[in-house]
């Protein structure tokens, strides 16, 4: 009986030692006890498996706030980091082009403007009042909408920091700073930063398109919904 109890005690000590990974010389936990697994870094999926970032925006039934025509310039990329791993090749189409299209479609769907025109010329880093007037004259516009993409990144966060195991949350962060400018006076009628994040838990070894694709679309769509609401609520009105 005593011998059995002694053996039980020794086993208990051994298991406790393995759990806490005591730094005894020549001692290392075996693979059977280690819950940590090698996790591959997030690599872009094969081209045919990459998710699509485009979606159908929600159309507003409200009447327009701004009479006249707005020209929507393509997004300017002002991110500090590419989507992940120094590249954007995680989607089936170029990210900047898709998001610029989404911006135009969302402004059109928001119906805050009587007419919306998509401008295709590249947006300069600095647009002076003179440049804005020239663009407006060329396209018969009353307003110009400029937006900068400040964030579109895949971020991974371990949920329980000290615990071994695979419990990473995969977040996609989307951020823009938009400006609505009156073409003639150069007055900024609306300017706000918009940031949204969406994500889901990942417990697999690999991060696949399903883990970040829907989150990216949700973050972008929610971000643009915030933008449309903000334009209606905070945008300065123009006396004609």
């Amino acid at each position, binding site marked *: 009986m005593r011998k059995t109890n002694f053996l039980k005690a020794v086993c208990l000590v051994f298991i*406790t030692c393995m759990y*806490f990974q005591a730094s005894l010389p020549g001692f290392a936990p075996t693979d059977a006890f280690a819950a*940590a697994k090698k996790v591959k870094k997030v690599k872009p999926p094969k081209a045919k498996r990459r998710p699509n970032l485009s979606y159908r925006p929600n159309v507003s039934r409200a009447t327009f706030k701004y009479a006249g025509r707005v020209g929507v310039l393509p997004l300017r990329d002002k991110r*500090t980091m590419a989507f*992940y791993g120094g590249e954007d090749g995680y989607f089936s189409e170029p990210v900047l082009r898709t998001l610029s299209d989404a911006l135009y479609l969302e402004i059109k769907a928001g119906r805050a403007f009587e007419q919306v025109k998509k401008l295709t010329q590249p947006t300069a880093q600095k647009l002076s009042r003179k440049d804005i007037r020239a663009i407006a004259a060329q396209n018969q516009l009353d307003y110009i909408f400029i937006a900068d993409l400040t964030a579109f990144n895949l971020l991974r966060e371990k949920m329980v920091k000290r615990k071994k195991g695979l419990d990473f949350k995969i977040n996609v962060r989307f951020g823009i700073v938009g400006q609505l*400018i009156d073409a003639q006076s150069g007055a*900024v009628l609306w300017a706000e930063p918009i940031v949204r994040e969406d994500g889901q838990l990942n417990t697999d070894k690999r991060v696949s398109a399903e883990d970040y694709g829907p989150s990216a679309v949700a973050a972008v769509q929610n971000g643009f919904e915030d933008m449309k609401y903000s334009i209606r609520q905070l945008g300065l009105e123009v006396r004609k």
Partner: protein
Amino acid sequence: MRQFICAALMAGLVGISAPAMAKGDKYLDALNVQLGYREATSYAVNAEKRGIDVGIEPIDKDGMQRLLGNDTKKFRPYDVAITNNSQFRIYINQITIVHAGTQQAFAWVDLDGVVDAIDPGGRGNKDDMRGAALRNNVIDKALAHGVVAPGETVQGIVFVKAKYRDEGAALFLQIQNLKRVAFLDFTLALK
């Protein structure tokens, strides 16, 4: 006697593993350390135009360890602050590293390059956790294009390749007025 040996062995093992249990990870600890909040005029190198103050200071090795977890190696981090003492909201339109003499811009630094340069290391899951924490930390602390309200100060880290600094680089900041389109340019030397 046997019970005494078991109890002594248990106590010894708990004593050895207690420091290991309490030991923190420097990359996870760095997530909770922020840049010291102060106005741009208190920085060693600062400039003022029309109520907008911009300040810049290099971050030393101790600062790198506290804020990011490790030395940034071939990238030199700078603490940059912008204080808006004007009556209007402003927007940080451009953040570029330029050659001080020619004003020609150097190549843009992707922060993934900074993360790779720091290279947290570790094995298996620990490596992945540290890498993810470092990446989030770098992107959160970097100076971003944003709107600054009147009376507000924003801060962030700007990373400059060491070789650019040796070639005479300067920080170029362009601020836009958000009442009516107008721009202010700032060029500050990197020391």
